[in-house]
Structures are given as structure tokens and as C-alpha cells.
């Protein structure tokens, strides 16, 4: 079987134009990647480099940083804000913003605690109440933005204060409600780890799935007479993923292993990635974020698109708050307060989702939260208090936004949008 498919006498349909500078083989592929980076289409590069720098610095300051035990902790700790950041990605994609995700997550934690502990509701009902409240809040924002024309910046800023107030009111005078340690929620968040053998099975499944979907896409493209990735490249990619994830799983299994909560977060990121890139709903998010008027004239219901984005964002914020409370085994006044809000937005932006709308993806929540959580974790290990954490996180956010703007200018100049 030829790796190059239809290549030979007639080039693939999409490579016919004589102006295309495209060669064959790995060198040409590398050159194309370098071209894109120079043009400002940075992809995940800055963030991978940033992570390397951050890890090197903290490891040199404290040798416990890259230990298995600490990384296990880091991953599980990153989940609640990571889930919130995933919602923020959706809102940023349509060119809006939600500044109230922290308050909504805190409110959701309070609702869970009040209904489950104080009122004695069954667990599923309490969870549904919390997440349903989040969805309702998102719907209200969407109505304010689409019907009343309130800028989302202001609508959600108002929400930030109001829902913080509701959270404090619900928690009452004591300001904290403990969740029982033997509840399924707390056990899930604190004690549930994937067995070692299952983690390797999951890694194998991921690599195999990547290869099979890649191969079927390549086969479909070849049948249609379009250019396709060679099987060799697909094998190499899958093997790289297998090696990377396999090593990570092995290293984490040296300690407690991979938390179920983190696995669920990754599953959520993958599901969102699929929805954003493979469904027409996802396409409408990008279209509305890129040019809302053009999307409207193409027959897209722009209001509905905004509404789904806001509802999804607030629902995920509620889910994140729930997980935060489970992790802590308590809902208190600090849940969702402090830097949660900014960390979630910073994670999305640092991960590569543009504040200007229309660019980004689900993986930016995962990558971004790893950066944020690494900084936070490293500074905690160094016994530095939250003042330093705020300063460093703020600086990283400023850097990420500056990079986003610079890359955007460069993209315009180099014609990558």
C-alpha cells in the first residue's frame, strides 16, 4: 500500500495550484510549521515552553516539585478551576466574557451544601439543583446581552456581586457547611484514583483511537482525491502520544496515581473539543465570534448561539464549584472567591483562546490550568503566601494577553487571520 495515496502522476485535488509552496516529507512539514509560527499562528507552542520554564524554575528551587506525589496532587487540584475555564473558553469564543464564574461556582457549592446537608435532599437532586441554577444564571445573562443589549462585561460584573451575596446569604451566619466525608461526592473528589492497570489501558485506547480516526480520515480524503496524512506520520504521532502519556501514567502511578476527577475533566475537555470542531453548533460559535453580522446573514441564529455559550459557561462554573466543595469537603465563604474568577479566565487565555473571539479551543482550558496550577502549587511549596501568588498569576495573565494581541497583529500581517 502506498503511503502517499494518489500522489504520483496527478497531485491531489487540493494541491493543484502552482503557487502553493509544498514539498513532500518531514522536512517540508517542519518548514510549514515554522512558517505558521513566524506568521503568529503560535498554537500550543508558547504554553508548552512556558510550562517547561515554570517547571524548571520550581524544580530548581524545591526538588519536591516534580515528585510523583506532588504532581498527582497538582493534577487533581487543577480540576475545579479547569472545568470553570472550559466554560469560559466557550464564552470567549463567541466574543463575550463572563466575569462572574467564580461567584457562580461559589453559589453552586453553597446550594449543594444547603440542599444536601441541611435539607437532606438526595445527592442527585442536590447536584441537579446546583447545576440547574448555573444554567438559569447563564440564561439570564444571555437574555440581558441579546435582548436588552447590556454588554456582557457589565451584566456579568453585576452577577459577580449579586451571586456572591446570595452565596453568603445561603451559607448563613456560620459561613461554612461541611459535607460528610463518607458522601460519594467527597470520596470521588478526594479518594478515587484510577487503578494502575486501567490507566495503561486508557493510554492505549487513546493512542489507538487517535491512530484509527486519523487513518479513516486519511482514507476518506484519499478516496475523494484530496491530500492526506501518510500512514507513517499517523503511526509516528500515535507512538509519540503513547510514549508521552504512558510515561506520565507510569510516573504518576509511582505515587497514588491519576485521580478519577482529573480523568473526568480530560473526558469533558475531549467532549467539548469534539463539539467545537465536529458539530455545526461548534462552527456557529466560531462564526459568531469571528463576525456576528456575517453569521446572522448566513442564517445562523446568533441569539441562540450566545445563549448556548452563556448557559454552558455558567453550568460548567456551577460544576466546577461543586467539585471544589467536594475536594474541600465543605462549602464556605471562600469557595469561588479570591482568585478563582481571574484564574479561570486567565487559564483560558493563557491556553490560547483569544479575548477577541473566534479563536481558541477546548484544550486551552487544560493547558492553561496546568500553567496556573503549577505556579500556584510551586509558590505554595516555597512557603510563599497568596500575595506572591496573586502577583505572579497577574503577571502571567498580562504576558499571555500581550502575546495574544501581538500574535493577532502578526497573523493579520501574514494572512493567517
Amino acid at each position: 500500500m502506498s503511503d502517499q495515496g494518489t500522489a504520483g502522476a496527478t497531485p491531489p485535488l487540493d494541491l493543484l495550484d502552482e503557487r502553493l509552496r509544498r514539498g513532500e516529507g518531514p522536512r517540508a512539514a517542519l518548514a510549514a510549521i515554522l512558517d505558521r509560527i513566524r506568521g503568529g499562528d503560535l498554537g500550543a507552542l508558547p504554553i508548552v515552553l512556558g510550562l517547561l520554564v515554570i517547571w524548571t524554575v520550581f524544580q530548581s528551587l524545591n526538588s519536591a516539585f516534580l515528585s510523583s506525589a506532588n504532581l498527582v496532587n497538582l493534577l487533581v487540584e487543577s480540576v475545579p478551576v479547569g472545568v470553570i475555564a472550559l466554560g469560559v473558553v466557550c464564552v470567549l469564543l463567541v466574543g463575550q466574557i463572563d466575569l462572574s464564574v467564580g461567584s457562580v461556582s461559589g453559589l453552586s457549592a453553597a446550594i449543594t451544601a444547603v440542599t444536601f446537608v441541611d435539607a437532606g435532599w438526595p445527592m442527585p437532586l442536590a447536584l441537579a439543583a446546583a447545576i440547574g441554577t448555573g444554567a438559569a444564571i447563564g440564561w439570564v445573562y444571555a437574555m440581558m446581552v441579546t435582548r436588552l443589549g447590556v454588554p456582557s462585561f457589565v451584566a456579568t460584573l453585576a452577577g459577580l456581586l449579586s451571586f456572591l451575596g446570595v452565596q453568603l446569604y445561603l451559607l448563613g451566619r456560620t459561613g461554612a457547611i461541611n459535607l460528610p466525608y463518607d458522601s460519594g461526592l467527597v470520596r470521588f473528589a478526594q479518594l478515587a484514583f484510577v487503578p494502575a492497570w486501567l490507566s495503561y489501558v486508557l493510554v492505549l485506547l487513546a493512542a489507538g483511537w487517535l491512530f484509527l480516526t486519523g487513518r479513516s480520515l486519511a482514507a476518506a480524503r484519499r478516496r475523494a482525491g484530496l491530500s492526506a496524512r501518510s500512514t507513517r506520520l499517523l503511526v509516528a504521532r500515535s507512538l509519540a502520544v503513547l510514549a508521552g502519556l504512558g510515561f506520565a501514567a507510569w510516573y504518576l502511578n509511582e505515587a497514588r496515581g491519576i485521580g478519577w476527577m482529573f480523568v473526568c475533566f480530560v473526558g469533558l475537555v475531549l467532549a467539548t473539543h469534539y463539539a467545537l470542531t465536529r458539530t455545526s453548533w461548534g462552527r456557529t460559535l466560531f462564526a459568531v465570534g469571528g463576525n456576528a453580522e456575517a453569521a446572522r446573514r448566513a442564517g445562523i441564529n446568533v441569539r441562540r448561539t450566545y445563549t448556548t455559550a452563556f448557559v454552558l459557561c455558567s453550568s460548567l462554573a456551577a460544576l466546577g464549584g461543586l467539585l471544589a466543595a467536594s475536594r474541600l469537603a465543605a462549602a464556605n465563604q471562600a469557595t469561588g472567591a479570591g482568585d478563582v474568577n481571574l484564574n479561570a479566565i486567565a487559564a483560558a487565555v493563557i491556553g490560547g483562546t483569544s479575548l477577541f473571539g473566534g479563536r481558541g479551543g477546548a484544550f486551552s482550558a487544560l493547558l492553561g490550568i496546568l500553567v496556573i496550577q503549577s505556579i500556584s502549587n510551586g509558590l505554595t511549596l516555597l512557603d510563599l503566601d497568596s500575595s506572591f501568588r496573586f502577583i505572579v498569576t497577574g503577571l502571567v495573565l498580562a504576558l499571555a494577553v500581550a502575546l495574544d494581541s501581538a500574535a493577532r497583529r502578526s497573523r493579520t500581517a501574514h494572512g493567517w487571520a
Partner: protein
Amino acid sequence: MSADATGPALSLRRISKNFGAVAALTDVDLEVTPGQVVAVVGDNGAGKSTLVKVLAGVHRADAGTIAFGDREVTIGGPADAHALGVATVFQDLALCENLDVVENLFLGRELRRGRLDEVTMELRSWELLRQLSARIPSVRVPVAALSGGQRQTVAIARSLLGDPRIVVLDEPTAALGVAQTAEVLNLIERLRDRGLGVIMISHNLADVRAVADRVAVLRLGRNNGFFDTAEVSDEDIVAAIIGAADNVVTRRANRERDAGDE
């Protein structure tokens, strides 16, 4: 090929549209039958683009009726226009610059087989662009990376995907080079031969003369004459556009003719 080559395909009667105190359109009539190209000409601010937007469902007419054959229709939004088979290429093209060519072509009507069917969409994009003799190197680059002419081609290609009955083109050749202008004019003739009705807004009388069967002149938001292209002179069209036979353009033309006679 056309199902109904005789009856009027689309007729606008006494369409009016106001923006605040400004009457952008007043009692405008327009009619296009299948297999006919109608050019709408007029000076800046004559209401051409407003008329396009009424047809596309971007603006609602304040008064007047739109009818397909004998059936009166309402165009309340872009989706209504799509459903009626009215496809519009706007002057600003209305493309999403962050999306690539395929994504723009199929925006709002993606092909799906469970999930998005990217391969078929890409294939059909190439077929469509080849029909239009379009010179676009890659359909997987963001539209922001394309030149003005290439974007125009993408916008026209997009209008044809939904098998429209009427195609409305707002200054389709304004941004194009010589060869691409000729291609677009060929394309308009092909649309007409397929039995579609074409409404073309243009400033360029040479283009109008090349393809249009009828010319409708707008002036200050009102009809100012309908002409058969075969029987009308450029001077008459210009006079209708500007509003009088004695105006700065005719005076200049006369002066130049006099100078040439000497």
C-alpha cells in the same frame, strides 16, 4: 430547465424603508423573471444597498409587498430569504475571516453525517470553485489570507450552494481584476442560462451593458426609469441616474465632443 420561465419570479411593489428621518426607499418597484438579469443602477445614496438588504431579510421593508409569482411573501429575516431561494452576495461579502474557505462556504448549512462531513464539504468546495474558474490556492486557509477578488469569488460561490431561484449581487465586480470581472460576468450569464433570476447592483455601465437584460435606475430612493439594455444609450442611463439631461456629466461630454470635432 427553469420550471416557470414565463411568469414573474419575483416582484417588489411600492417598497419603502425609512431610517429615522431619512427615507432610504420610497415606493420602489422591481421585477425579475426567471432567466433574466436585471441591473439596478444609481448614484451613491440612491438606495441600492438598502434594496439588497430588504431582499436579503437584513432590513424589513416599512411598507410595500414582495411576491413570488402570485404568492405574496414576507421576508422577515435571512432565514426566510434562504427558504424562498433568494441568495445574496453583499458588498461587504459578509464572510467570517477567522474561518477557512470551506467553513465559510457551508456556514449555516453544513453537511453532516452524524458529525460534520469535512471531506465531502471540501470536495464540493473544490468542484464549485472550479466551476467558477476560481483561482484560490487552498480552501483550508482562513479567509483573512485571501485577496479581495478571491473573497468575492468565495462569496459568490457561497450564494450558489443553496440552489437559489434568485441571486442578488451587490457590486460583484467592484473589487475584481480584469480576468476575474470577465469570469464573474460569464458566471452571471451562466446563472441566467440555468433559468435563475439575477439582480445585479453595479456602478459600471460597461458591465451592465454586457450582461443585463433590463436596467432599473434608482435615484434618491425612488424609481427613476426602467430600460431595455438593447434599446437604451449610456447617456440616457446616466441622465436617469443623475436626474436630468442637462447636468455636469452631459455638459462635460458635450464639451469633449465639441473639442474632438475641431
